[in-house]
C-alpha cells in the first residue's frame, strides 16, 4: 500500500478512536448515574485518567521495545479496544458494588477497586493508540493532536445525539462499530490475516449478550419494581435521563405530608404511575378523567398555602413533571397554568403511552405545557405575567450528569433566579417554593436567606413583610410576595396552619409561642434562624451555623451544598462515629475523586517515571513537568468554568456540556493544526513566542468574558435555541483556538529535544487535567466561577514561565540545523 494512503488510514483511525474514547466516557457516566448516583460521574473521569496515565507510563517505559512495531501495536490496541468496550462494560455490571454499603462491608472497597480497574482498560487502549500515533509521526505531533481533538469533539457531539435514541446501556455495543472500523484502518498494510482478529470482539459480543445496567437496590426504581403488582409501562431515553414509568397500586407519592387528610370522607389517592429519572428521583402522573374531586388531598400539603393568598391566579409551575402541582393549581381554581418542564421525555410520555391515563392533562385549554428550562423560559416572558410562580418539589434532578461535570449546581435556587421570579410576578403575586426538610435544619433556612437577599436586591426595603414560612414534618413551603403581605393574607396563613396542623415558622409579627406546636422541634431553629436572617445578625448566622446556609448565587450555584469543613470536628464529637450522616455524599465523592486522582497521578505517572528514568534529562524534566501539568490544570479550569457559564445561557445542562466540550475540542484542534503549520517554518524561539502570544490573548479574552458574558446573555434572553448554540460556538471559538496552541507546541519542542519524554508529558498532562477538572469544581463550590477563570489564567502564566526550560540549550544544535520542524 502507498504510504500516503496508509497515513490517511492512520489519521482516520486516530480520529475514530478519539471519538469512541470520549463517547464511551460520557456513556459510562450515564450508566453510573443510572446504576448508582450522578456524582459518580466524577469517578468515570478519574477512571479515564487512570487509563490515560497508565498507558503514558507504559509507553514511556517500553519505548525502546516498541520501536519499529508501532503500527502493529496500534492496530492491536484498536482491536483490543473493540473487544473491551462491551466486555469491560458487561463485566463492570456484574460487580455487586453498592455505595451505601461502603461503611459496613469491607468487600465493597474491593468491588470499587475492581470497577476502577475494569473500566480503566478501554481508556488505556484509546490512549495507547494515540500515543503510538505520536511515535509513528514524531514530526507531526500537532497533526495527530489535532485529529485527537477533532475526534473527541465529534465524539462529544455525537454521543449526545445518540443518547436521544439509544439507552446508555446499549452505547458500548454501538461504539463497537467505529472501534472496529478504526482497527481495520489501522491494520491496513498489515497481512490480511490480521482482519481475522475481528473474531475476538465478535465472539465476546455473542458471549455477553445484552447486559442491562445493574441498578443499585437503594434506588427508587428498585424499590418500586419490588411492589407486588409493579409493571414497567414505558421507558424513554434522552441525554438528560432515562425515564422509567412504573405502574403499581402501591405507588402513592404526594408533595409532602398529608396533614389531617380525612381519607374516609374525601377518598383514597388516585392511582399513580411513577416516573423514575435515572432510576432515582420520582415524579408521579395521576389518573385523571377531568374531575378534580379526587385531588382534594392536594389541599392538605404545605404547598397549598399560596392558593390561600391569591385568587384565580395565573400560575407558572417550574418543574411540572408528571403534573401533580398542575393538578393542584387547577383544583385550587387557577385561571391558567403554564407547566414548564426541562425533560422532553415527560411531555412525550404524557402525549403517548400515558395520554389516556393522565386524561390529556397537558392538552387542556387552561394548561400550556412548555418544554424549556425554567429560568430561560421565564426570562423571555413579560414582567408581571404571573400571579403565582411555583417551583415544584424537585429533587436536585440534574441532568448534567450526562456530561462532564456538574455535581449539583442548580440555577433555579440562586439569588438571581429569585430576583427573576419576583420580576415576573404581578403586583399582588407570590412566589412559592417547597423543599423537603432535613434534620438538622438547613434547606429551608438557606432558602429563606436567599429570599431575603433576592428581595433586598430587588429594591424591597423591608423583606420581612413579604415573607411567610410554614412547615410539616417533612416539607417547608416558603412564600415571597411582590407586595407586602396584607392583613387578610397574614390571617389566611395563620388559619391554614391552624386548620391543617402546619407550624408557621415565620410571618411578620409572629412570636415564639406560635411556631412550635404541631411538629415540635427540640429548639425552634427555623423561627430563630428566620429572625436572625432578617436582623443585623445575618452574617453572624452564616458564620456560626454548622451548615452552609449562605444563599447560592449564579457564580456559586450549589444550593444543595451544606457541608462545611469547619463543622467536621463538631459532627464527629456529637455523633460518635456517625459523622457521615452530616456530610453530603456528592461532596464526599468529589473529594475522594481528587484524592484518587492525585494518588493515581503520583503512583502511576510520577513515581514510575522518576524511578525508571533516573538520571536522564534531569533539569529538563522539571520544565516538562511544570509546563504540562500547568497546561492540564489551566485547560480544565477554563473548560469547567465555561461549561457552567453557558449552562445558564444554553438552558439545558447537557447542551452546555456538549456545545462547550465540542467547541473546546474542535477549535483547540484547529488551533493546534494552525500552530503545527506555523511551526514548520519557525525556530524554537519562534515557537516560544507563539505560545506566549497565545497565553496573553487567552488572558485578555478570559477577563473580557468574565466581565461581558453575564450582560450579553441577559440581552439575548429571547433568542432561539439555534441562535444560542451558534453564538456560543462563535464566542468560544477564538478562546478554544488559542488554548489549542500551547500543548502541541510544547509537545513538539519536547519531541524534538527529548522524544522519550513525550509519553511522560502526555500522561502528566492527562493526570493534571483530571485533577484540574475536579479541583475546578471544588474551587467553584467554595469561591465561585470567576475565581476558577482567574486560577486558570494563573496556570497559563506558570506554563509560559516554564516554557523556557522545555528545550535545553545543548539540544539546539539539531534545531539550528533543521528548524523546530524538519518537514
Amino acid at each position: 500500500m502507498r504510504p500516503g494512503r496508509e497515513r490517511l488510514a492512520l489519521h482516520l483511525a486516530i480520529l475514530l478512536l478519539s471519538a469512541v474514547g470520549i463517547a464511551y466516557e460520557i456513556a459510562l457516566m450515564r450508566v453510573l448515574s443510572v446504576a448508582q448516583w450522578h456524582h459518580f460521574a466524577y469517578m468515570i473521569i478519574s477512571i479515564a485518567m487512570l487509563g490515560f496515565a497508565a498507558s503514558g507510563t507504559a509507553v514511556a517505559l517500553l519505548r525502546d521495545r516498541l520501536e519499529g512495531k508501532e503500527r502493529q501495536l496500534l492496530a492491536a490496541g484498536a482491536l483490543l479496544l473493540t473487544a473491551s468496550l462491551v466486555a469491560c462494560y458487561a463485566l463492570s455490571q456484574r460487580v455487586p458494588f453498592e455505595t451505601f454499603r461502603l461503611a459496613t462491608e469491607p468487600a465493597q472497597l474491593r468491588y470499587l477497586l475492581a470497577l476502577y480497574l475494569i473500566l480503566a482498560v478501554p481508556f488505556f487502549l484509546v490512549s495507547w493508540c494515540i500515543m503510538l500515533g505520536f511515535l509513528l509521526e514524531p514530526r507531526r505531533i500537532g497533526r495527530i493532536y489535532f485529529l485527537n481533538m477533532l475526534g473527541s469533539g465529534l465524539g462529544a457531539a455525537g454521543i449526545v445525539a445518540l443518547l436521544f435514541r439509544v439507552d446508555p446501556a446499549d452505547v458500548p455495543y454501538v461504539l463497537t462499530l467505529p472501534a472496529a472500523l478504526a482497527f481495520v484502518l489501522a491494520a491496513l498494510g498489515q497481512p490480511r490475516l490480521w482482519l481475522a482478529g475481528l473474531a475476538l470482539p465478535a465472539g465476546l459480543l455473542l458471549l455477553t449478550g445484552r447486559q442491562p445496567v445493574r441498578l443499585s437496590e437503594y434506588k427508587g426504581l428498585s424499590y418500586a419494581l419490588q411492589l407486588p403488582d409493579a409493571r414497567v409501562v414505558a421507558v424513554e431515553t434522552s441525554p438528560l435521563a432515562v425515564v422509567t414509568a412504573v405502574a403499581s397500586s402501591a405507588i402513592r407519592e404526594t408533595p409532602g405530608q398529608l396533614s389531617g387528610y380525612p381519607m374516609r370522607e374525601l377518598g383514597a389517592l388516585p392511582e399513580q404511575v411513577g416516573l423514575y429519572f435515572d432510576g432515582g428521583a420520582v415524579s408521579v402522573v395521576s389518573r385523571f378523567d377531568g374531575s378534580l374531586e379526587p385531588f382534594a388531598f392536594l389541599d392538605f400539603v404545605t404547598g397549598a398555602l399560596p392558593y390561600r393568598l391569591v385568587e384565580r391566579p395565573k400560575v407558572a409551575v417550574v418543574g411540572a413533571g408528571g403534573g401533580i402541582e398542575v393538578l393542584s393549581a387547577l383544583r385550587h381554581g387557577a385561571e391558567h397554568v403554564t407547566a414548564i418542564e426541562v425533560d422532553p421525555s415527560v411531555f412525550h410520555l404524557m402525549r403517548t403511552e400515558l395520554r389516556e391515563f393522565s386524561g390529556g392533562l397537558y392538552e387542556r385549554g387552561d394548561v400550556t405545557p412548555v418544554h424549556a428550562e425554567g429560568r430561560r423560559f421565564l426570562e423571555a416572558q413579560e414582567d408581571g405575567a404571573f400571579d403565582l410562580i411555583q417551583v415544584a418539589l424537585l429533587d436536585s434532578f440534574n441532568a448534567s450528569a450526562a456530561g462532564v461535570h456538574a455535581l449539583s449546581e442548580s440555577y433555579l435556587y440562586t439569588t438571581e433566579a429569585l430576583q427573576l421570579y419576583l420580576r415576573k410576578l404581578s403586583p399582588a403575586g407570590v412566589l412559592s417554593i417547597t423543599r423537603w426538610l432535613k434534620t438538622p435544619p438547613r434547606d429551608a433556612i438557606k432558602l429563606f436567606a436567599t429570599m431575603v437577599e433576592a428581595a433586598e436586591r430587588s429594591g424591597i426595603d423591608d423583606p420581612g413583610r413579604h415573607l411567610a414560612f410554614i412547615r410539616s414534618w417533612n416539607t417547608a413551603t416558603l412564600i415571597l410576595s411582590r407586595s407586602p403581605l396584607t392583613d387578610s393574607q397574614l390571617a389566611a396563613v395563620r388559619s391554614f396552619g391552624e386548620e391543617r396542623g402546619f407550624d408557621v415558622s415565620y410571618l411578620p409579627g409572629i412570636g415564639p409561642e406560635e411556631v412550635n406546636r404541631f411538629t415540635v422541634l427540640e429548639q425552634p431553629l427555623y423561627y430563630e434562624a428566620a429572625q436572625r436572617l432578617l436582623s443585623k445578625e445575618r452574617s453572624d448566622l452564616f458564620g456560626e451555623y454548622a451548615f452552609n446556609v449562605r444563599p447560592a448565587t449564579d457564580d456559586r450555584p450549589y444550593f444543595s451544598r451544606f457541608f462545611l469543613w469547619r463543622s467536621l470536628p463538631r459532627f464527629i464529637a456529637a455523633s460518635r462515629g456517625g459523622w457521615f450522616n452530616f456530610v453530603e455524599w456528592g461532596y464526599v465523592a468529589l473529594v475522594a475523586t481528587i484524592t484518587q486522582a492525585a494518588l493515581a497521578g503520583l503512583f502511576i505517572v510520577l513515581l514510575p517515571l522518576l524511578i525508571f528514568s533516573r538520571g536522564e534529562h534531569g533539569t529538563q524534566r522539571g520544565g516538562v513537568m511544570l509546563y504540562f501539568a500547568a497546561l492540564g490544570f489551566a485547560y480544565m479550569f477554563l473548560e469547567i468554568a465555561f461549561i457552567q457559564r453557558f449552562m445558564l445561557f444554553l438552558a439545558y445542562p447537557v447542551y452546555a456540556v456538549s456545545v462547550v466540550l465540542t467547541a473546546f475540542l474542535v477549535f483547540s484542534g484547529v488551533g493546534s493544526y494552525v500552530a503545527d503549520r506555523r511551526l514548520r517554518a519557525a525556530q524554537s524561539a519562534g515557537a516560544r513566542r507563539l505560545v506566549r502570544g497565545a497565553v496573553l490573548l487567552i488572558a485578555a479574552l478570559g477577563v473580557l468574558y468574565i466581565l461581558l458574558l453575564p450582560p450579553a446573555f441577559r440581552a439575548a434572553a429571547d433568542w432561539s435555541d439555534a441562535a444560542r448554540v451558534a453564538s456560543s460556538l462563535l464566542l468560544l471559538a477564538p478562546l478554544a483556538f488559542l488554548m489549542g496552541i500551547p500543548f502541541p507546541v510544547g509537545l513538539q519542542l519536547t519531541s524534538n529535544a527529548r522524544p522519550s519524554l513525550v509519553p511522560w508529558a502526555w500522561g502528566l498532562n492527562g493526570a493534571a487535567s483530571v485533577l484540574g477538572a475536579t479541583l475546578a469544581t471544588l474551587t467553584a463550590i467554595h469561591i465561585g466561577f470567576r475565581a476558577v477563570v482567574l486560577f486558570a489564567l494563573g496556570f497559563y502564566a506558570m506554563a509560559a514561565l516554564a516554557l523556557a526550560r522545555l528545550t535545553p540549550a545543548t539540544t539546539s544544535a539539531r534545531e539550528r540545523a533543521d528548524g523546530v520542524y524538519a518537514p
Partner: protein
Amino acid sequence: MVREQIASPTLGEYAVEDGRVLGAMRTVPRHLFVPPDLLKLAYADRPLPIGHGQTISQPFIVAAMTELLQVGPGDRILEIGTGSGYQAAVLAEIVGRVFTIEIVEPLAEDAEERLRRLGYDNVEVRWGDGYYGWEEKAPFQGIVVTAAASHIPPPLLEQLQPGARMVIPVGPPLQVQTLMLVEKRLDGSIVQRSLMPVRFVPFTRSE
C-alpha cells in the same frame, strides 16, 4: 457473640433506660436476623443491609423506638415494614401481640419462618401493602412504620388508638436516623416530635 454490647443502648446524650426494653434487647438473638456474611457485625451498634434495599436498624434505634412507643404486656402493635423481623421480635418480648406487614415477598417469607422457628407465636406476619394498615386488628396501642414514604398513610393514623404513639425512623438507608414520634391525643388531634438520636445543635454560640 457479645450480646451485652447492645444491652445498654446509648448514643450521645440519649440513653434507653426502660428495663423491659433493655431485657428484650438482651434476649433477642440478633445474630440470627443478620445475613450470614455479616455475622461478625451482628452486635455492633450499626444498621446492616439485609438485601432488597432494606436494612436491619441499628440496635440503638430499635431500642429507642421500642421505648418511645411506651407499650407493655397486653398491647397490640402494628409494624409496617417487617424486614428481617428483628424489631417485631424485640416488641414481641414486651407486648401482647405484634402484627407486621412486609411488602417484599421474600423478606416476608423469611421473617415469618425465622420468627416461627424462634418461637415468637405472638407475631403475625403478612405479605402485602401496609398503606391501609390491618383494619381487622385495629385499634393499635402502638405503630412502627419503617417504610419511608412521602406522607404518613392516613389509615394508619386512624387505626392508632387515641393516647397511643407511632414511631417513624427517617433518613437515608444504613445511616443513623431521625425519629419521628407521632402522638395521637385523646381528642384525636395529632402532635409530632422530631427527635435526633444525636444531640446536635447547629448554632455555635452558647445560649
